């Protein structure tokens, strides 16, 4: 009796289990696909609309497929009845149909006429500067804290840790005041020097160096190598994973930084970075937003990071996991 009953429950249970085995992936995939669409569609719409004429951006249904003629003029010059030359805006249906549209570079041209090339250069220059200095300073400090024994080592480490508690917003204004008082405001150094070492970077490098076997250095020391030689010739070459993660985070962080840049260089447009430039355009255009040039600017700002992301994806993910696990 009992065996039959238990066999029945067993059967019922395995039936449920089978149902679950089918249902779970179905539900799971559905959720993930919806989520993936939500995450990716804004990017796709941005890219396709950055190649459209302004009125076509607002038209429905949204067209996504570019077809010839390529690089149409969105505002052709025509001669009106009185014989005067004047610019007209092409109506949406002249350049876009249900699913297709005639791509144009108008938005890109317009944003390049703003100081975009300059902003692009500034962003790259500042991001690279910060990245290289951080790689050097953070790894040096991390190595010192991880491996060198000297009085004050532990105290300095706890000092660094406690500084991590300070939220950025608190330091914002006094840092601005400090740079203003020493006359560095509105200069490249203002965008590079304060950010040339990072607490997180020091911590990350320290953690990494501690995972390197000590025997390596001991062997080198027996051979008579000094600390500097060991660090630059032996340790750094085998630290590529951590260094790459740090490089990517530093570069990305500075490339996208907005608030600090806004405070430190906003009154000198030659020094603006891409995010700052775009934000000022938003203010300038006001309600009459020139969406095609805005979206073109967005694409240009995002593209370099997206390329780096696809090339070094592993390090992004590892870096994030690292902060999560070791944090």
């Amino acid at each position, binding site marked *: 009796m009992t065996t039959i009953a238990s066999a029945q429950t067993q059967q019922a249970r395995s039936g449920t289990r089978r149902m679950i085995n089918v249902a779970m992936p179905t539900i*799971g995939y559905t959720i993930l696909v919806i989520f993936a669409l939500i995450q990716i569609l804004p990017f796709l719409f941005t890219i396709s609309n950055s190649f459209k004429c302004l009125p076509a951006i607002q038209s429905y249904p949204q067209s996504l497929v570019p077809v010839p003629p390529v690089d149409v003029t969105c505002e052709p010059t025509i001669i009106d009845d009185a014989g005067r030359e004047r610019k007209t805006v092409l109506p949406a249906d002249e350049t876009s149909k249900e699913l297709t549209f005639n791509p144009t570079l108008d938005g890109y041209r317009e944003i390049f006429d703003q100081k975009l090339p300059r902003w692009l250069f500034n962003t790259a220059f500042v991001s690279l500067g910060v990245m290289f200095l951080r790689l050097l300073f953070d790894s040096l400090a991390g190595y010192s804290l991880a491996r060198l024994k000297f009085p004050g080592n532990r105290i300095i480490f706890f000092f660094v840790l406690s500084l991590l508690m300070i939220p950025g917003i608190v330091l914002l204004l*006094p840092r601005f005041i400090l740079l203003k008082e020493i006359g560095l405001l509105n200069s490249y150094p203002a965008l590079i020097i304060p950010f040339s070492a990072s607490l997180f970077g020091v911590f990350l490098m320290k953690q990494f160096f501690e*995972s390197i076997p000590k025997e390596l250095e001991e062997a080198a020391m027996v051979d008579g190598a000094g600390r*500097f030689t060991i660090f630059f010739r032996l340790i750094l070459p085998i630290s590529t994973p951590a260094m790459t993660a740090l490089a990517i985070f530093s570069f990305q962080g500075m490339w996208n930084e907005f608030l600090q840049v806004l405070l430190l260089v906003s009154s000198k447009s030659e020094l603006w970075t891409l995010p700052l430039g775009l934000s000022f355009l938003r203010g300038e255009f006001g309600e009459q937003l020139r969406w095609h040039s805005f979206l073109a600017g967005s694409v240009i700002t995002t593209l370099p990071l997206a390329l780096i992301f696809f090339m070094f994806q592993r390090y992004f993910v590892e870096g994030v996991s690292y902060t999560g696990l070791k944090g």
Partner: protein
Amino acid sequence: MIDEKSPISESVPTIPPQKVTTMRTTKFEETVAGYLFLAPALIIFVVFLVIPLVMAVYISFTDWNGITPLRDDDAFETIGDDNYQQLLTQEGRRQTRFFTAVKNTTYYVIGVVPTQTLIALILAVIVNQKWLKARGTFRTIAYLPSITSSVVISIVFLWLFSRGGLVNAFIELLYPSYGDKAINWTDDSTGVFHWVLKQFGVTRADVGDWASEKHYGLRTWDWISGPSVTMLMIMILNTWTTIGTLMVIFLAALQNIPSYVYEAAAIDGANIWQIFRKVTVPLLRPTTFFVITLGLIGCFQVFDQVYIIGGGDATLTVAVLVYRNAFGTGSNMGLATATAMILFVIIFIFTVLQRRFFGGERANW
């Protein structure tokens, strides 16, 4: 910093401490090298972190306008805790603005932090399932918004959520009658709770005098407004942006849970929900608290998106108020630094509470 008992840290290789026997490096040389290696980073930290912090504390007790050079004799006077009183206790415009910002930020944090944590957790659990194909693709797509500039995302969302934008077009697709009363996402200061109450015909006049009583510069009715419609849009934006990062953090932690744990639970007859509830969630505890702390700290300081999209008091957050107090009309650096210091204290309290009560022995960066 590593919680020795957590299952996650077990996979971190630890090297047994060994006595370093060096014959040539003397103690003195090692000390010199140690400080030389540390010097550049340490100088940067002292000059651009420690000194500013001390300055911030000091300036918050002065009436410095931020424009007169500090070297001038009459640049500022120390005025005690006057700035703090104007913000916190003294009735007036400054108090009203400060508590408006506190209210908005609070709704923002309450809305965003649990939502993004929960969604990220659920997604990470799904992505971690054995039957899933294309795991890498999902992870890549999820992470993409995290590498994008906040300014770019704000501009793109401003476009997507504009009155005639794609989001409204999509809603209209689902509800054809929606077109007449399309929501003006990017510029609507109505509180969401007020809006809901209004659908039931409830306004401030209906609920009695208590709603008009002022507490900390705001009427009770205004305190219960909920986030404004525009704020709601910014909340959606930031949730959208952050989920990817948080999901990757959760996923990394999940992958460190050995599969025999699940197998053991399955053999004991636990169903999927029980496994999630009694195995996954407890094992993810440290990670969850890390993610929540990260979320709290980030959300309390929200600035970029509000600066680009918002305007006016309905989207004013504390971080934006710090900026406005410093550089807006009638600016006062003393008041602005005091505002920042209060925000610091709020964040600090939350961090400490989180550590103390939830035992998440993780620092916050």
